[in-house]
C-alpha cells in the first residue's frame, strides 16, 4: 500500500532531510518543485534577517534539480539526490563566491570544493547558498527562519553549536580530525571542525557518515570509522556529569535552573547524573583566546591583496599595499585577533603566552580525560547567559566567557553536541550541550536520539 507523506500545503522548508528524502524517493515531489519552494521562501524572508550572503543562481539551481530528477528516474541517484543544502560562507564551494564573511574576499570564487561539500555533492545534494558566519554569543546563522534541512558550518569555539542553540536545532562539533578541514578557511587550524546542523538526529547520522573519514587532502584526519546510530531507548548505566557552577565557572542563575531541569529529565530517562568538579573550564576562554589568535594571525596572513581578493586602489610601495589592503579589507574583530596573536607569538612574549597556553591546553586535555574515566558524558549549557540585549547587559558573564562551555570541546578536540529542548525561553529556543571523550560521537547521537524520541516528540 502506498503511503502518502506529502500533504497539500505543507511547507517543504520545514521538513527534515529524511522526510524530504522519502518524498523524493516516493516521487511525491520533484527536486525542481523543491527548489522552487525554497526560492520562494527565501525571497519572502526579510532582508534584515536573511542569513544568505550568496545565493546560487536560479538558472543553475533549476538545471541541477532537473538533473537530479533525471537521475532519480534512471535509478542512478545518490543518497542526497536533489536535496537542497546551505553552507557556511567560510567553507569553499567551487564556482560559488566564498567570502568568509569578509570584505577582503568579497570577490573570491574558489576553484575547488571543500571535501565535506564535495562529498555531499557527490551524493546529489544541491548547494542553494552560502550563509553568514555567526559570531560567538550571537548565533546569526538562521535566527528565526526555517532554512534548508541541514547546514554545514564551522565550529571554532562553539559558533555552530551556539547557532543551533539559538535556532532550536541539533549541531555536532565532531572529534578533531573526524571531518576534513580541506576547503574550510583556516582561522584556528587546531581548533576548528566542520559539522552539521540539522533538524533531526537521523539526518545528522547520515551526514556525518558521508562527510567524515580520512581525506588525503587533510593530514589531520583520522581513519576511525563512523558508527551508525543504534536506536536504543535504554540509558542504563550512562553516567552524566554536570559542572559545579562558581564565580570562575559563571552561569546566569536562570540558565542554571534550566540545566538542573534537564538533568532531571535525563535522570528520569535512566542516566546517573552527578555534579562534578570541572574547574578546568575556568581556563578555557583564556587558552582559547591566546591560541586561536596566534593561529589566526598566521592563517590570515595570506589575505594580502596580492593574488586574489580585495586590493586597495592606491599604494606607493609594497608595504603600503599590505597595510591599506588589510586595513580596509579585514573586519575589526579579526584585526583584534591578528594583533593579539602576533603579540603572543612575538619572540619576546612567546614563552609567557603561547608556550604557557599550550601547556595549559595539555592540562585541560588531561582534566577532561580524567573526568571521562568516570563519566560517559558531561552536560553543560551552550551559552551561559540569557538571550536578549537587556539581560545580557546584566549578566555576570564577561565578553570573553561567552564561549566558556563550548570552547572546551575545541581546545581538547573532543566531540560535543547541541540538543534543543523544544521549548522557548523569553521567546527564544532553548537547548543544552553534551560532550564526550574522543571518537564517542555515536554515544552523543544515541543520547540525542533518545531525547528526541522521548522528550521532543511529545512536545510536538
Amino acid at each position, binding site marked *: 500500500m502506498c503511503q502518502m507523506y506529502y500533504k497539500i500545503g505543507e511547507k517543504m522548508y520545514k521538513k527534515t532531510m529524511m522526510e524530504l528524502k522519502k518524498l523524493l524517493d516516493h516521487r511525491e515531489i520533484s527536486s525542481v518543485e523543491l527548489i522552487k519552494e525554497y526560492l520562494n521562501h527565501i525571497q519572502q524572508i526579510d532582508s534584515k534577517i536573511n542569513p544568505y550572503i550568496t545565493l546560487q543562481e536560479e538558472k543553475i539551481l533549476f538545471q541541477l534539480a532537473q538533473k537530479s530528477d533525471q537521475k532519480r528516474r534512471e535509478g542512478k541517484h545518490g543518497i542526497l539526490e536533489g536535496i537542497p543544502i546551505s553552507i557556511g560562507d567560510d567553507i569553499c564551494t567551487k564556482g560559488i563566491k566564498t567570502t568568509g564573511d569578509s570584505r577582503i574576499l568579497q570577490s573570491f570564487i574558489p576553484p575547488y570544493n571543500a571535501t565535506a561539500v564535495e562529498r555531499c555533492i557527490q551524493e546529489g545534494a544541491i548547494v542553494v547558498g552560502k550563509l553568514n558566519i555567526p559570531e560567538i554569543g550571537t548565533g546569526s546563522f538562521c535566527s528565526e527562519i526555517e532554512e534548508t534541512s541541514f547546514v554545514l558550518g564551522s565550529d571554532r569555539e562553539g559558533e555552530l553549536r551556539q547557532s543551533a542553540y539559538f535556532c532550536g536545532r541539533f549541531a555536532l562539533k565532531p572529534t578533531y580530525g573526524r571531518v576534513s578541514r580541506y576547503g*574550510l578557511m583556516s582561522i584556528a587550524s587546531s581548533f576548528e571542525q566542520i559539522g552539521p546542523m540539522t533538524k533531526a538526529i537521523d539526518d545528522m547520522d547520515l551526514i556525518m557518515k558521508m562527510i567524515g573519514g580520512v581525506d588525503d587532502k587533510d593530514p589531520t584526519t583520522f581513519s576511525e570509522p563512523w558508527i551508525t546510530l543504534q536506536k536504543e531507548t535504554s540509558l542504563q548505566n550512562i553516567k552524566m556529569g554536570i559542572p559545579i557552577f562558581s564565580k570562575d565557572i559563571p552561569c546566569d542563575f536562570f540558565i542554571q535552573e534550566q540545566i538542573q531541569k534537564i538533568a532531571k529529565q535525563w535522570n528520569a530517562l535512566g542516566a546517573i547524573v552527578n555534579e562534578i568538579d570541572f574547574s578546568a573550564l575556568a581556563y578555557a576562554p583564556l587558552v582559547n583566546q591566546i591560541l586561536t589568535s596566534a593561529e589566526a594571525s598566521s592563517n590570515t596572513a*595570506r589575505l594580502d591583496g596580492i593574488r586574489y581578493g580585495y586590493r586597495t586602489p592606491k599604494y606607493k610601495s609594497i608595504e603600503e599595499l599590505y597595510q591599506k589592503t588589510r586595513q580596509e579589507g579585514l573586519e575589526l574583530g579579526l584585526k583584534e585577533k591578528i594583533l593579539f596573536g602576533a603579540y603572543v607569538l612575538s619572540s619576546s612574549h612567546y614563552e609567557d603566552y603561547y608556550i604557557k597556553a599550550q601547556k595549559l591546553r595539555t592540562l585541560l586535555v588531561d582534566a577532561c580525560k580524567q573526568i571521562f574515566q568516570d563519566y560517559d558524558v558531561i552536560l553543560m549549557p551552550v551559552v551561559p547567559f540569557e538571550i536578549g540585549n537587556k539581560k545580557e547587559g546584566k549578566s555576570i558573564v564577561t565578553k570573553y566567557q561567552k564561549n566558556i562551555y563550548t570552547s572546551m570541546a575545541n581546545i581538547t578536540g573532543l566531540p560535543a553536541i547541541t540538543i534543543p529542548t523544544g521549548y522557548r525561553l523569553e521567546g527564544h529556543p532553548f537547548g543544552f550541550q553534551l560532550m564526550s571523550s574522543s571518537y564517542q560521537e555515536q554515544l552523543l547521537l544515541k543520547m540525542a536520539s533518545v531525547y528526541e524520541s522521548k522528550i521532543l516528540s511529545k512536545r510536538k
Partner: protein
Amino acid sequence: MINQYEMVIGLEIHAELKTQSKIYCSCSTQFGSDPNTQCCPICLGLPGTLPILNEKVVEYAIRAGLAMNCSIATKTKQDRKNYFYPDLPKGYQISQYDQPLCYEGYVEIPLKKGTKKIGIQQIHIEEDAGKLIHTKEGTFIDYNRSGVPLIEIVSKPDLSSPQEAKQYLERIRMILLYIGVSDCKMNEGSLRCDINVSVRKKGDIHYGERTEIKNMNSFSYAVKAIEYEAKRQMQVLEEGKTIIKETRRWDEKSQCTVPMRKKEEAEDYRYFPDPDLPYIYISEEQIERIKESLPELPNEKKQRLMSTYDINGDDAELLIANPKIGQFFEETMMYFSNSLMAVNWIMGEGFRLLAEKDKETEIFPFTAMQFAEFLQLIEDETISNSIGKKVFEKMWNAEESPSHIVERYGWKQISNPQELESIIHEVLSQNQKSVEDYLSGKKVASKALMGQVMKKTKGKANPRKANEILKKRLKEKIS
C-alpha cells in the same frame, strides 16, 4: 694587523631537492617552465587549502643527514616562519625551527695538509618561495618555485678561511650529487648559501659580533665576499669601533658587501608549530633502510681509490670530484694495470681536451676499454708518448680503435734495431757539423741529432731505443 685576527665562518646552505613533486602538493618541480604553469591552489596558498607532506622530501633529507654523519630525529615537527613578501603566498614559510630532522653531524674537507672536520649543526626541510620578475612594465610573480622542497644545511662556525669555506661548499655539493638528492645547479638557484662571518683576535675564546651575507649563488663570489667582509670587520675593530650585527649582501659590481637591513629593523618571524601538519615520526628501520641504500660517499671513495690503485690524494680528489671520470678510471683499470700512467693521461691531455672540445660534456667520447688499449700501445712502446698525444686527439673524433688509428696513419713506433741503425747511420753522415760539435765536447749536439732522427721518422722512432743506438755510435766515434 691582519695576522692578529682570525676569521670565524659559518654557512647556511640551501639546496633544492630534486623530488618529482613539490613538498606540500603534487605540482611538478621542473625548472624552466613558463611562469605560473606549475601551480595549484595549495602552493598558491588559496584560502582553505592544506599542505600534505611529500614523504620523498623526508627521505631525501635523511639521506643527506646520514651522508653528513648526522643524528636523525625520530620525532620532529614543522614550524611556520611568518613574514610578508609577495613571493610568499601564505604569508609564512613552512620550515623547521627548533627540532630539525637531522642534527649534530660533520663533513671532512681536504686541506693542503691533511683534512679538517667541519661540524654540521642541523639539516632541516622547508619550502622555497616564488620568484619576483622585475620588468619595465612592473613586477611580476612566478610561483612555479613556490613549494619546491629545500634542505637547509647549517654548519657550525668551524671554518676559518675563505678557502676552507670553498672546500666545504664543494664537499657539500659533491655529497649531495653523490647521493642524488639535488642537482646543485647554482645558475638555476638550486644551491645557494648565506654566510655568517665574524673576526676575533687570535687566542680570544669569545666570538666577535657577526654579520650575515645573504643569498650567495656562486662559490667564487662567496670566497670574495668572505675575504672582503672579514677585512672590513678587522678594519672597523682596528679603528676602535664595534661591529654591528646586520644582514649584508655581496655587490659584484663594486666588489664589496653592503648592508641590507640593520638590527633594529630585524624581523621577528614569530615561529610556531604549524597546526596543519602532524608530527613526523621516523622509525629506526626507516633510517637503517636509507643508510643501506646510500652509495659510496666521496671520502670513502677517495680512500678506496688511494689504497686500491696506489694513487696520491690530489689525484684521488680530482677523480672523486668528477664521478663519471672516476668511474671511467676504474673501468680502465680492469684492462690496464699502470694506474699512474692512466691518471696522468686523464688529468693531463684528458682534462685539457675535455675543456677544449666541449665544456658541457663531462666524459670522454670513447670507452674505458679503448682507453686501456691506447695506454697499452704506449706501455709496450708500439707508439711514443708524443705520437700518443696525436692518437689521443684522433680518438675524440674517430670511432676507430686506437690500434686502427695508429695503423691508418702509419704511426707505429720504429723499434726494430736494424731499421733504427740504418736511419741513425744516415743522420750521422748527413750532419757532420753536429757530430763534430759533439766530438769537441758540446754534449747538447746529441739532442740536435736525435731531433733529426725524429724528423726523418716523422716522430715514429722509439725514442728510448734510438737514443741508445745514437749514444753508442757517437761513443764509437770518440774512441
